[in-house]
């Protein structure tokens, strides 16, 4: 979005992500269910934060609100100064394209596209020139230079997540949201993926928001928050 780029230079002094009094509730068979209640959070550019909590505590819901994938029932989210609730879905999609990268627990690679084509997606959506070369570089940076022509089903779980990480970083997003990025992996792959994620984060100076169960991964972030009963509590890092 032109608007986002125009203000890039002016926003370095303010929080890149700012959530105020966020609430999210849904209507269930037994009545209203509060998932998030009065959550406030500020994340500055280049920071790394982890959000932990028990299953069903609302971690992913919070992540989806911060990334503008969903809208809160109450409160407000600002992303690089843009008030998400006041934007339509198309405008939010455009903002995500410019600003955000994602890594998911279940990788979410498109099965019909090769590894390289999956990495190409964000670049091509944005109309970036020399997209194929950049996609190949991104694959090389996650150690999969030779696997570009492979389809997701031909790759192991760890390799699929590397492709997803390459896709998340390839267009140089300022914020990276990672939802349990090592949740579906074995022990060895888990460490390797976490190393890769943090190394690339440092290299690209990205703001990283990780939702995780894994205490070791959370410990690598500058700040850690615990989500309990829909409320956010700061943890000592």
């Amino acid at each position, binding site marked *: 979005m032109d608007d986002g780029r125009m203000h890039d230079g002016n926003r370095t002094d303010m929080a890149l992500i700012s959530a105020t009094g966020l609430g999210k509730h849904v209507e269930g068979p037994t009545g209203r269910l509060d998932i998030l209640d009065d959550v406030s959070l500020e994340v500055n550019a280049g920071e790394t934060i982890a959000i932990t909590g028990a299953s069903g505590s609302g971690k992913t819901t919070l992540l989806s609100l911060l990334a503008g994938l969903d809208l809160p029932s109450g409160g407000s989210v600002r992303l690089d100064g843009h008030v998400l609730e006041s934007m339509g*879905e198309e405008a939010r*999609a*455009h903002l*995500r394209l410019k600003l955000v990268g*994602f890594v998911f627990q279940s990788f*979410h690679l498109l099965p*019909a596209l090769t590894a390289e084509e999956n990495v190409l997606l964000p670049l091509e*959506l944005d109309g970036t020139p020399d997209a194929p070369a950049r996609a190949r570089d991104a694959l090389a940076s996650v150690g999969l230079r030779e696997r570009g022509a492979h389809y997701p089903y031909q790759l192991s779980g760890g390799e699929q997540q590397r492709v997803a990480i390459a896709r998340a970083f390839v267009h140089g997003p300022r914020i990276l949201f990672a939802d349990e990025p090592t949740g579906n992996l074995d022990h060895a792959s888990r460490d390797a993926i976490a190393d890769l994620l943090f190394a690339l984060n440092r290299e690209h100076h990205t703001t990283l928001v990780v939702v995780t169960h894994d205490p070791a991964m959370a410990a690598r972030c500058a700040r850690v928050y615990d989500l309990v009963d829909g409320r956010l509590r700061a943890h000592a890092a």
Partner: protein
Amino acid sequence: MTGTRHALRTLRREWRLPELRTLIAALLLSVIALGAVGTLAVRVQRAVVMSAAELIGGDLGIDAASSLPAVFMRHAQTLGLHASALAEFPSVAFAGDRSQLLSITAGDGAWPLRGKLIVAGPRDRSRVTHAPAPGAIYLDHRALVSLQLNVGDRVQVGGMDLVIAGQLEQQPGGGDLIALAPRAVMALPDARAAGLLGAGSRARHRLLVAGSVNGVDAYRAWAKANLPADAHLVTPEEVQQRLAVAFGRAGSFLRLAALLAALLAGIAVALSAQRYARRKTDEIALLRALGASSRFAFGSLAWTLAVPALLAALIGAGVALGLASAAFAYAHDLLPASAQRAPLPFGPALAAACVGLAVLAGFALPPLARLRSIPPVAVFRRNIKLAPQRFDLLYALPVLVALGLIALETGSWKIAGVLAACLAGAALFTTLLTFAILWFIRRYAVRLNPSLRLGVSALTRRRGLSLLQSCAISLGLTALLLLAVVAPALLDNWRRDLPPDTPNWFVVNVQAEQRAGVRDALDKLGATHFNDMPVAVGKLVAINGVDVERVPFRGQDVSQEASQQVRLSWNCTLPPANRVIEGQWFAPDTRDAQVSLDVAWLRRFDLELGDELEFLVGNQRVDARLTSIREVDWSRFNVNFFVMLDPAHGKALPHTWIASFYLPPGHAGALAAFSRDNPNLSLIDVDELLDRARQIVGQVTAAARWVLAFSLLAGALVLAAALTMSAAERRHEAALLRTLGARRGQLRMAALCEFGLLGAISGLTALLASAVAGAWLAHAVFRIHAFSPPWPPLIIAAVIAAAVVAALGLAGTRKVLHTSPLLLLRR
């Protein structure tokens, strides 16, 4: 990045997806069915219309029930036009002990003026010629074979001995396209001399003129003003139009059958699209999460479908053209030689491609359109619900598309509605039956063996899908059983239903003074069931005082029919095989003239009881009030008439007699002498006509069966689509059961039970529905009162169909049973 590029990239791998393949196969099938039938129908129609001028044999013709006054010929010559007279009539030819009904054209030396009469001489050299000289006749191949004669032999027609001067290869046929009887051409003076063209004979007289455009126009204007009451002008345009209407009707029946197959394939499209949409949910959610606009996401999805669909439509159109060409080549014997040059039309195949795409869009759009409302947050929550009501109205789209296409084809929303109601009725019946069976088995399934219980529960679990599957397959099977088993049985039954001594010969043109002699002669030959009725040939000239030319009939063809000659008869009592359904049969000696009409004739001309009809017979006018409406059983082969007058007024009209009688087969040779003694009589062999009619019905049925085979294919596609739809669930279930220790045999048994039941439901529905439809046809159309559906072949066919459905279903799940459970769970 454009959605197209993403779509093409995705497609490179996705074209292997079973749901996409089923979807494309359904489209291909629709286009082929519609295209092949449409192309063939149009080509045949065009071929026949093309030959219309040749069919007349001149630039303008005058058709009349009796020979035209000489002034018509003289006036043409005065205008510098060529003129020729001819007559057409049926008559039986004899050669030794053999006899053969012929469709005879008797022409003067100038005939034909347009088109070609081609005959082959003794040394097989074809030549273009005119009608033969007196004393000679040309017979076509069929006539020569059935009479076992060769060129140069002699044959007896109308009591005259004629030399066969050549084998008729091609003639400008003024009559039927598909000749009921073998053809012959003789000299007009011979036909006159033999008395074959008498006042009451079935001969149609025609005067043809040809020449300069101005001359023909001038003649047309003059003739119009001077036409006798029983005559009308025949122009190539009029013949073209009449032929086009006749072929249009036959064509639209076949096209409608093909359209129903295409709509059935539409169900497969809808099912596959549903599954495809479900598969695409994650992708759309991800693309939206990554920042793709909804236009991009939906556009790429549309392109993923549009690219293979367009290709399939083109390929389908190509295959349809090929099939239609092959069928045209196969059927060319039935068409006039000149019609075989008709070019292959491309329009219908392209139209079929468009209709196929419309079916695809109509049936696939609703599930795919729902993807537009997938929120990006679905990337985290797979079970996210779609906004329910937003696109639900779209589900009316397939119904509208189906109704619209049927209405377009039949030209009537009413017919579309009735047809849709019938289909809905059949579907409702299947649904109820399926529900009942499912309820029954669920109730008693607990007592079954575990494998069978598993199969039964699979059907009840996927109840919606089971219903859809059984409905679609049942409809396809019903159509097929109806055509393959019930229709031939109906025809056989109809023939057998005729009493063995049903009249099998007609003799026409019997003069009043000949009546007693003819009856005696036939009695001596062993003829029985002799029945004769008077016949007067006239024309309907006014209805309720309004000239028929000015009455606004429903169509051009009805108007033309109203102006043609009509045969009237009379009798004191109601003839056999007639039933008065409204009004009263004539009281004896009524003062005012009264008329009784067959109900079909009445409906055709929109008449009602009490109407005044004016007929012109010779120079006499009869003004009669419509006092009764009859239903005539035409299948009885008695002498029957559409129009009957009260006897008091009828017998005053100039008339001859028509008689029917029964002569045991094999005695036809005895009629040769009878024919020679009574040269003015025309003999008509009904058995022969019936056999030929049955042959034609057989050909039409074969064509319709060929078209309806598409319905069965569409039914198989629906099954395939339904299997695809539940494939993921099946795989998961099978993997789970295998992991829990189920043996492959048990799973196979469960699948066999599931599809066996599905096959049984479809087979049973098809069996009952086709039997009911057959019984209705027997009663309403063929008037067979004791028709019993052919149960043994019907049951065998239904069992085979059910077994095929079960086998197809089982084959579809084979892959699931043979995949490692580990792999399945990983997927």
